[in-house]
């Protein structure tokens, strides 16, 4: 097997998401059709360029994981399109049929949060990492072994031979997450969804996993959707950040721009709640009140209306705002953007 080729020059976005929605019905009894729906993801649009890393941040229940799962087709979207363009391979993810799913999965992969649960305890590292190759029917067993060794070296498990036939319980959390990364990268995917890949790890190990993902991403030409609740981690991992609130995207823009100049009131609140590892810095107090609710049959008005300190008539009289451009590649969904 050959070394992964550098990412081909592509002007089209790798991923174009338009009007993506996912509604989960709430069952009210065996014979009654559901009338209530959780609007987990409620009409979001974004693009990811080849080689780019987009961070999806927000509180629990905002729809970030649901979005990630739809992109890799672990969940079917209720509405909307996810156009995936990898060179000549152009598909709407929703229309990828059962017979095509194998090929799709060789281009799109996922890394899960919990390295203790995302691996089969009865299978060795070799079994786990080579499984995608076996499923796709790539290479002979010795070739697969060679490829797995190459990947283990790439993710910093040295010497790779020593890890090949170990079981998950013999590995630390950091080592398991390295194996999960190796498994995700073994087919040379173009796009990887990483759902909180470092949140279970200790600080000192977290940094090396973050560095590993960034380095391999740029070396192998992989784009990431990086799902996290930790804005400080997103700052180091992502070119752009998208903030979600109750199924809606409320702000998207370049990482440093979002951190330095947040425009949506929710983004501001979120940023001002993040503790700072420096006792000499005093944070500005968080402006919003209350807690996050659930988006069950939400009202048409702005999703953030109940907690927003800047709410005005314009917010009550209009539907949930569209994304307005507020800077270069920077958009926010708020009617009062120019007043606050």
């Amino acid at each position, binding site marked *: 097997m050959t070394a992964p080729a550098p990412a081909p020059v592509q002007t089209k976005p790798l991923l174009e998401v338009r009007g993506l929605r996912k509604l989960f019905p709430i069952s009210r009894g065996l014979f009654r059709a559901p009338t209530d729906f959780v609007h987990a993801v409620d009409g979001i649009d974004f693009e990811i360029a080849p080689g780019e890393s987009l961070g999806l941040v927000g*509180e*629990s229940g905002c729809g970030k994981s649901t979005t990630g799962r739809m992109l890799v087709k672990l969940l079917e979207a209720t509405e909307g399109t996810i156009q995936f363009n990898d060179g000549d391979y152009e598909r709407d993810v929703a229309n990828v049929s059962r017979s095509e799913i194998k090929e799709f999965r060789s281009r799109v992969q996922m890394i899960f949060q919990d390295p203790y649960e995302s691996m089969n305890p009865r299978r060795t590292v070799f079994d786990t990492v080579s499984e995608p190759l076996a499923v796709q029917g790539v290479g002979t067993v010795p070739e697969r072994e060679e490829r797995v060794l190459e990947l283990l070296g790439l993710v910093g498990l040295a010497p790779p031979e020593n890890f090949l036939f170990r079981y998950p319980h013999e590995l*630390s*959390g*950091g080592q398991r997450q390295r194996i999960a990364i190796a498994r995700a990268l073994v087919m040379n995917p173009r796009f990887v969804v990483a759902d909180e890949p470092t949140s279970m790890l*200790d*600080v*000192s*190990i*977290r*940094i*090396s996993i*973050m*560095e590993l993902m960034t380095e391999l991403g740029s070396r192998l030409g992989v784009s990431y959707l990086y799902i996290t*609740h930790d*804005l*400080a*981690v997103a*700052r*180091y991992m992502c070119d752009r950040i998208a903030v979600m609130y109750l199924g809606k995207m409320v702000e998207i823009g370049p990482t*440093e721009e979002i*951190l330095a100049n947040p425009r949506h009131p929710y983004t501001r*609140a*979120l*940023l001002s*709640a*993040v*503790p*700072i*590892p*420096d*006792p*000499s*810095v005093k*944070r500005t107090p*968080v402006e*919003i009140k209350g*807690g*996050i609710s659930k988006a069950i049959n939400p009202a048409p008005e702005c999703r953030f209306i109940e907690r927003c300190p800047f709410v005005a008539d314009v917010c009550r009289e209009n539907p949930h705002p569209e994304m307005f451009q507020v800077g270069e590649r920077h958009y926010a969904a708020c009617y009062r953007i120019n007043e606050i």
Partner: protein
Amino acid sequence: MTLSLESLQTRRVDRSKPLLEVDDLTMRYKIKAGEVSAVEDVGFTIHQGEAVGLVGESGCGKTSTALALLRLLPANAEYVSGEIRLNGDDLLRLNEDEMRERRWRDIAMVFQGAMNSWNPVYRVGDQIREVLDTHYRGQLSFEEQTRHIETLFSAVGLPAAMVDRYPHEFSGGMRQRAVIAMALACSPELIIADEPTTALDVIVQDQILKELKRIQAEMGMSILYISHDIAVIAEVTDSLGVMYAGKLVEYGPTSEVFARPRHPYAYLLLRSTPSITGPRRKLAPLSGEPPDLLNPPTGCRFHPRCPFATERCVVEEPPFEEISPGHRVACWNYEDVPELDMELVR
């Protein structure tokens, strides 16, 4: 002891007076494979009204230290040496009944994940009532108990009506507030809070930490925070201890340790913590893995991963030395640890 449950007790605080003094605490777990040296020679003092933090990574002994203070260790744990003095009395010399009386009344604990351990079939108020039943048996009527629990609820920002509700009617943040209300039930002098906000979203975390800070100041309590989150510890504590592999490696005023950490591990921990403010600095990863505490490394336990280690560190354990008032470090080469002046990323 006088009962003033009408309003929550407010203590006069003398910040120079020690409340809890831990000396040379050593504790091991006996397992099949041998003895795990979980807490080794740990010593620190919490003063009246002070907030102290213990930070470190999984398995460094911070939760074991907390449980040891309350004598709540599992059966296979063994105290090898040390003293834990609360207002001068050594807790390790009390018998089990005396110790039970002290728990909740003098020292209360907010356990890790406690917000998910409410019994789902009992009302939250009734579960707090159990604490009052145990410690004020027969001294309070049912109505007095109810009024006290309502006072506790309002102290932590919960509506009084929630007293009669079941745990599933509380959100995550509200359940954690109720846990804190329970810890406050007997107006303890010290609360040990083990990862009190770890499972919560940042905005709720911010609310809970503010609430704790306010209550601590108003009631004149001391708090021992246990956390892996350095940013949280930076914001809520006056002093902090950094633990590594069962040892306390640095202890001092929070502002001083953050401005100039002297132990290499504390230094690397701070350099590997990302922040959303300030310039985007290069983060320094820590190489290697935490040691096996069945066979801890010789000399300084951090030497296999330490970039400043010398031959002496391999053979000789460094003393926990005071380098400035109230600031102690266990490192032979602490003077070699540079300032936290980190270079910018690209």
